[in-house]
């Protein structure tokens, strides 16, 4: 198991958002979490990545280590990556420079040599080709003025460059037209590997037509309420999340 989550709770102030999440992800698999807006999917992703504004309890083992005791950067060094639902703009910070700084920082903490600008460029160009990223985006500031699709593509490029053990993709499909979705899915598929686990967060099943998961989990009201094979996604598409939650007589708050 690359990730084992046990009874994970997260609060902001008095508001409880995650209410006891249990989830296990084996190395090399692709899992999907689906669920309605506001069910806590992004919160789960952010908590796993080390965002500090949440009060967290429960246990999470990442690669056998106690994840919750680590800082965000330490989690990154260990190989945890989050493709953000809303990638952040860094005005004036060159994209290529940002990527090289990130990669070298991660390499340094893994005991590897840092790459100089020339070696990095060669490496980055290969990865850009892999994810079919327009090279002109590299000379611009990180995400500044990027279209929605370009931002998402840039997240996948960062994934490709940092080569994490676990990548969480938060709504990478949202805001993409069908062509962009296909291209991003193709890039993600190219990054599947026996040494890498992917956790796809989405509330549309259409992404899963292109990236076929080993397992699908359903999240509502801050809990994983159901897990199943890839067909579960289709079933959800037809019957909706709430019907599903009721079927399993799980304690669910009001409807939203």
């Amino acid at each position: 198991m690359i990730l084992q989550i046990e009874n994970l709770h997260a609060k902001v102030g008095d508001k409880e958002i995650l209410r006891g999440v249990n989830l296990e992800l084996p190395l090399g698999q692709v899992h999907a979490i689906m669920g309605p807006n506001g069910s806590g999917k992004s919160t789960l992703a952010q908590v796993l990545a080390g965002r500090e504004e949440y009060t967290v309890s429960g246990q999470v083992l990442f690669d056998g280590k106690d994840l919750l005791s680590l800082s965000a950067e330490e989690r990154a060094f260990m190989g945890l990556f989050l493709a953000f639902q809303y990638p952040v703009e860094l005005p004036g910070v060159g994209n290529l420079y940002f990527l090289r700084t990130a990669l070298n920082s991660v390499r340094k903490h893994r005991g590897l040599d840092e790459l100089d600008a020339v070696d990095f460029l060669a490496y980055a160009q290969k990865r850009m080709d892999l994810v079919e990223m327009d090279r002109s985006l590299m000379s611009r500031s990180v995400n500044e003025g990027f279209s929605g699709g370009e931002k998402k593509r840039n997240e996948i490029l960062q994934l490709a460059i940092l080569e994490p053990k676990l990548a969480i993709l938060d709504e990478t499909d949202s805001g993409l037209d069908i062509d962009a979705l296909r291209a991003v899915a193709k890039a993600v598929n190219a990054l599947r590997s026996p040494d890498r686990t992917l956790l796809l967060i989405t509330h549309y099943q259409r992404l899963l037509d292109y990236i076929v998961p080993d397992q699908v989990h359903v999240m509502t009201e801050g809990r994983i309420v159901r897990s199943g094979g890839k067909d579960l996604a289709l079933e959800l598409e037809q019957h909706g999340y709430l019907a599903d939650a009721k079927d399993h007589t799980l304690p669910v708050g009001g409807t939203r």
Partner: protein
Amino acid sequence: MSTDIREFTEREYKYGFSTDLDTDIVPRGLSEDVIRLISGKKKEPAWLLDWRLEAYRKWTQKKEPRWQNVHYEPIDYQDISYYAAPKPKKSLASLDEVDPEVRAMFDKLGISLAEQERISGVTVAVDAVVDSVSVATTFKKRLAEVGVIFCSFSEAVQNHSDLVQQYLGSVVSNQDNFFASLNAAVFTDGSFCYIPKGVQCPMELSTYFRINAADTGQFERTLIIAEEGASVSYLEGCTAPMRDKNQLHAAVVELVALKDAYIKYSTVQNWYPGDAQGQGGIYNFVTKRGLCAGSNSKISWTQVETGSAITWKYPGVILQGDGSVGEFYSVALTANYQQADTGSKMIHIGKNTTSSILSKTVSAGHGQSTYRGLVQVHDTAIGARNHTQCDSLLMGKDSGASTFPYVEVKHPSAKVEHEASTSKIGEDQLFYCRQRGIPEEDATTMIVNGFCREVFKELPMEFAVEAQRLLSVSLEGSIG
């Protein structure tokens, strides 16, 4: 905000050592006698003494300005020593004779007084000024070959008296303002630079100012003249020891660009900012102004202000020649209890004159940054254009930023544009960087540097690197 960031923005001032130099100091206090004494020590011509005395008399009639958006205890002008010079062991015939302690001090600052290429291909001539007295000017010979004069102000007074007399006070008069009059009365040294007609100065010229003695003020003057078609790039850097009393720095810089001339003046200001509690630090009250005297001349100011307890200055350009261009690029960083009230004055007089102002302020800790600018278009300035952009970045909840753009337009054809923005370093931005494995401290520097990038790219290459480093050092320590 996490403790990491707090430590980061509170790291200590690296240049805070003081050097035990044998120093010739005039007793504290200011009077006509003190001015006569200074002028006498410097063996100045009578016209200069008269000019100083005239300035002094004007100064005594002036009130210290209080309109700026900074706060400090009243300065006791009788409690300052107005002349402090490292005593030369003998008069200097060459660089080799520079006092080894002075040399060691500059080595410690990372400034080499030896004549050498700093970075492959880039040559920088350095004039080093300690406590207002120039101690060494490098590359003098090579510059002389093309007719460039680059020397201390005192030397210029001795050897190029006619030029000094012609231009001194022609841009900033000895009655311009309270601090300019004070400077004119008591200035002890500074740098002088003259680029003859048609000459592109073959290297960067640079002056490093250092306040060393305690309880002294530093009052240096810089005068740069670019004749028709000449061009020069000039850099000024400065540091001071850590002292728990505030010290006054009131400099004057005058630039004169004749027809088709270009002067690029870059400052990396790193005076001692005071400690994390706001004790000590330099009061940096400076008058800098350029005159685009000839048509199609251009003057460009770039400043990176990271030091000083209080910075108060408005480098400006008088756009007299038709088609002349004035530019101002500024980064002002205030951390801990630093205050900065800075900006630019662009005075459009000639036809089709253009000016642009780009101001970036970064406030951390209890830092307060104010942009204050004046764009004035006279009724003669047909077709004048100005673009002003002021961006403020706030770090932490106790920092602040204000913007005061003043515009006075007397010709209807003028086009004056102003844009302003204020943003905070977002937790989102920091988290994004940290998630990618960039530690918080590096991420902060990266974001701030990114914010300042458009200004840094105006600096000469090697100084841009220096400025980025300085910025990160200065940030080390104050977000709350």
